[in-house]
């Protein structure tokens, strides 16, 4: 655990677009998303069009990194591109009323309700979010 389970992305990701700030800020160890300036809906993933009111006026907000495990699995057969087994989590962040998923790179004591924090793991010069245990 703790070592990269992936060194090369098996997927193409479109970058350099209106939501580039999301990727840039991940590289600064920040998790950003968009919020609608018209109806205040908090989005995840970030959006250019609010799905609640169809406003295109969105602003960037920074999310806190703390959350709790809602569900988890130990993926023993890694998908294409992933080299080793890993824990996969569904996490509910304190700042976001939507679950997010990610690999877990912390200690082996994992259970539903455990407090975790977002961490960052670099793949091909781009940080992606992962989770690790919260140290109080």
């Amino acid at each position, binding site marked *: 655990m703790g070592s990269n*389970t*992936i060194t090369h*992305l*098996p*997927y193409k*990701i*479109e970058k350099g677009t209106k939501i580039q700030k999301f990727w840039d800020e991940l590289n600064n160890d920040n998790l950003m998303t968009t919020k609608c300036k018209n109806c205040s809906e908090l989005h*995840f*993933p970030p959006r250019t069009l609010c*799905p609640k009111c169809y406003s295109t006026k969105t602003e960037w907000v920074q999310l806190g990194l703390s959350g709790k495990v*809602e*569900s*988890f*699995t*130990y*993926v*023993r*057969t*890694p*998908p*294409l591109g*992933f080299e080793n087994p*890993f824990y*996969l989590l*569904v996490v509910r962040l304190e700042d976001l009323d*939507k*679950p*997010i*998923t*990610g*690999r877990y790179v912390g200690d082996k004591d994992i259970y*539903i309700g455990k407090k975790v924090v977002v961490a960052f793991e670099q793949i091909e010069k781009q940080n*992606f*979010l*992962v989770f690790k245990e919260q140290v109080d």
Partner: protein
Amino acid sequence: MQEEIAVVGAGVTKFGKRFDVSYRELMAEAASEAINSMDRPITPNQIQGLYVAASIPELTVDQAHVANLAAQELGLEPEIIARVEMACSSGSTAIRNAWAAIKSGLIDTALVVGLEKMYANTQAANHGLCIVPDVTYEATNGITAYSGFALIAQEHMKLYGTTRDQLSSVSVKNHSNGAKNPKAQFFEKGEITLEEAKSARMVSDPLNLYDCSPITDGGAAVILTRGSLTTKFSEQPVWIKGSGQSVEPSLGVSNMKSLTEWTALKRAAQKAYQTSGISPSDIDVAEVHDCFTIAEIIEYEDLGFTAKGTGGKFIEDGESALSGSLPVNTSGGLKAKGHPIGATGVAQVVEITEQLQGKSGKRQVDGANIGLTHNLSGFATHHVVHILSNEEAK
């Protein structure tokens, strides 16, 4: 009263590893199975609508524009034609679109063919499955179909006390049914024991190999027509009494309301029950989307066969067994019949059609008059439900 629409032809190919046929040969075989099931086989000039359900032929066999390929192979000049891609629910979505085109009055008769050839390029097929969820924001984090459904299973077990034995019992039942279906991928394998199912290699906790459906080559086809024309083709039409579809505004996990209570399925089911005037207790036989064992357990609940949280008990008590009160997945389901993703939703309607016609051989449900199909895609984000009956007026 609006004119009802019926299935007048239905057939499936042998499912499994089909290195003996090309993609287009498989397409022709599926169509041929449906045409030859008809009391008076249809001719090309009678087919006005053509729908091809195919999810990943661009990846596995390097062929795009496959509905046009079907027009070529089957010698058709339809007035309405479309290729339908909704991942694992492409088949039922194509049937719903054909049904809607007939319902609208645009056409009278349509052929729906669903197929997938996944063993032609297994790496491409795996990639095709991996890119069904939200690739940019979720698949990059390592989530795929089996780990996604494992997360669903973990939460259902925690919330409702669903057990390892209950998950495996779904697999045992479906393999037992598949052992009675010569077209099933695992027909030759025969039955499996609970011990075998429980002790299989773990894939993503708590789902092991026997909790997961396989990749498959296979095709299925149905022919639909309006009520006034059924006698031209069939002595035993099977009527589409209800049809419902719904989707979550979520491509992955992030925008789903709940992992374990599928609100889109409940909406689709309610629509199908409402439009048919049929209730869950009227259903004699059902084909549901058991891509993973946990999915079948949640579907018992959200289709209204049993109360929320009691899906595990429903399988444990044998209610969904061939001899139970509501036999589910008599074909073997996705688990044992196989899951050629574009074909699955069509093959489910074929199985129910044959059940309601009394043609299901060793797996026939005695006195089956009303059947249901359920087909899903993504992390249970999109659902299609059909209700069929062998009587026009219920």
